[in-house]
């Protein structure tokens, strides 16, 4: 009996590639194995096994999605996802692809989710009934949350024609944030520096177009921004409000806009994201709760025998001596 060749599907971090991979694996059954292109090592694979590339990188083994779809439909029947469902799944997976930069385990979960959609129908995933779908939604919420918080709480410094900010993110959301801002401030160039120790990089955006900057290019960009700062400092007549002036105005506005009789410590503490609280006045909201010194059980015991903790300390010290 002729033994069927095993299949290795090599994919990249795009929705199309992952969908194609899931379709191939589903058509081939147990014989197919999926590997991310960054982890693919041709020497580790059995010589007789067939390699299919779903990652579009000019490889001759690359197979287009339409072709894969034909194979799938031939073996398994028609492709059941409607356009709307496909869009919803795509949205979910796009957020998941941005989950934790160095986590390669996310691809296994995404492939599982696509398989569930193909086998049991997309509603199973979209209504979050399965554990995997719930985990996928949780992850997409985490990524979305980081993006939305950054859009709201990250501050920008105006340096000539540049709007500059620096932040470190757990998930891959930098390009989204820069795109959001570059659409909002079309006359300016938005630069978001990511101070990673291993490989610092930045994203630059103008009029909605975002580019990745690293290495020498980033050094040039930094130098340009520094020149702008020098020019502003050298200029004797400052026409516009400086970044510090505006910060002072915002702090004054922040101080006066709360209603003292409605002070709600718990709510304020819950709402303020700790990551951004250091930067500006919001930390006061946290201070309200955290500012109170922790009381130890000893203090209560001491209170019964002594009038104040100072007396207790004095007694303790004298006892020691």
């Amino acid at each position, binding site marked *: 009996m002729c033994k069927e060749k095993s299949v290795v599907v090599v994919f990249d971090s795009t929705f199309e590639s992952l969908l194609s991979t899931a379709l191939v694996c589903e058509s081939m059954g147990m014989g197919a194995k999926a590997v991310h292109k960054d982890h693919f090592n041709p020497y580790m694979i059995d010589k007789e096994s067939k390699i299919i590339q779903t990652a579009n990188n000019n490889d001759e083994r690359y197979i287009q999605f339409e072709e894969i779809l034909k194979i799938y439909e031939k073996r398994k029947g028609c492709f059941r996802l409607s356009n709307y469902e496909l869009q919803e799944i795509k949205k979910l997976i796009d957020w998941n692809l941005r989950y934790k930069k160095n986590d390669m385990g996310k691809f296994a979960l995404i492939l599982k989710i696509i398989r569930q959609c193909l086998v049991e129908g997309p509603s199973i995933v979209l209504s979050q009934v399965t554990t995997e779908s719930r985990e996928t939604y949780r992850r997409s919420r985490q990524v979305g949350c980081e993006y939305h918080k950054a859009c709201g709480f990250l501050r920008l410094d105006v340096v000539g024609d540049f709007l500059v900010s620096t932040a470190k993110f757990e998930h891959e959301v930098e390009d989204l944030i820069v795109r959001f801002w570059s659409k909002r401030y079309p006359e*300016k160039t938005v630069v978001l520096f990511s101070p990673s120790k291993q490989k610092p990089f930045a994203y630059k955006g103008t009029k909605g177009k975002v580019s990745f900057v690293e290495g020498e290019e980033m050094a040039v960009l930094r130098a340009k921004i520094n020149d702008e700062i020098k020019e502003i400092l050298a200029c004797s007549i400052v026409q516009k409000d400086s970044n510090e002036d505006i910060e002072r105005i915002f702090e004054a506005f922040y101080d*006066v806009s709360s209603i003292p009789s*409605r002070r709600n410590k718990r709510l304020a503490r819950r709402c303020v994201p700790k990551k951004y609280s250091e930067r500006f006045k919001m930390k006061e909201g946290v201070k309200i709760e955290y500012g109170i010194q922790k009381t130890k059980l000893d203090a209560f015991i001491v209170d019964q025998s002594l009038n104040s903790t100072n007396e207790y300390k004095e007694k303790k010290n004298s006892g020691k001596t």
Partner: protein
Amino acid sequence: MGFLEKLKILGPAAKYDLCASTASNRAIKYSKFNTIGMGNPVAGGVCHSFTPDGRCVSLFRVLLTNQCSNDCAYCINRVGRECLKAAFEPKELVRVFLGLYERNYVEGLFLSSGIPRDPEVAMEKTLEVVELLRTKFYFNGYIHLKLIPGANYDQIKRASAITDRLSMNIETPNQSRLSELSSTKRLMTDILKRMKWIKTLAEREDNYVPAGQTTQFVVGAAGESDLEILERMEKLYSQMDLKRAYFSAFDPIDQTPLEKIPKTPLIREVRLYQADFLHRNYDFHFRDLKSVLNENNMFNLSKDVKLCYAFQNLDRYPIDVNNEDTTLQELLKVPGIGPTSARRIIKAKKAGYRFKKLKELARIGVVVKRATSFLEINGRKQARIDNYV
């Protein structure tokens, strides 16, 4: 007087005005084509910080001036109340606001004003700020403008064309209550007539007031009941195409005629917000909400509105989640089930999924602790109502 000093006077003067969401569908129209100026209102609200009272700072909320000739008994800016008076120059306000917006401190502008003498003159001043922003600086971001009672039709038309949201504070549910609080404001002519104009303009013109109009009640200042407020809300939603209503529990301010009146409990404000949300998002009719009121025509302060409704209509429960005839509307009326989880239940049922355990419902977002007494799974009751009580 410098800008900071003015801000310290005019910032607190606006803190009782409410504004929350910054969502405007104008975002889609502008984002692709604008290449000059700045600003882009987004489809969902963005918060930029939180104040110690737990409220989100999203908009730069200020008064243009706190000088006012109205004698509203609850108001911090009423005529005759001794406090520092100030007024922003439109240009300085625009300059600072753009500075804040550019640095991502705020999401938009919320502008209101006192009425020093003539309401039309005061309205003209506030319009000058907005027109400066839109036409000279090409600001495309979110602007919420508080209309001044007594503004003329032309001014309201101009305001509708250039702002995202307009609002006019109705303060009390009817004229008799308003007369108790203010001798200068007329509900029909000064407020409701203007709200009707906004509605007509928004219907007639394509991009007018894209985020709709809102209003605000001062709860408890005139001794009105929740029934009166509900009745007014019903009319506003049906006749004025109101986007939402805001409620502010009365808080006595010194040097006002109501300074010795006790403040309204905040929980009453919460109950009114619950009723408003139940109407807008949970498909509750106003008759359902009115049926919950007690003999004094007030909401029960110790129990939430949806739970009260469920207890009053026990014959409609328990509802079987797996039953094919169970509709979205029925699920929305179960305490502990919100619009998102109700939609998910319907979606799962459509996919042929049958719920077997309460755990599965918890996984899709149902607050099981609250819902359990009102639900059935495959014909089996999950808990007795008595247990809940």
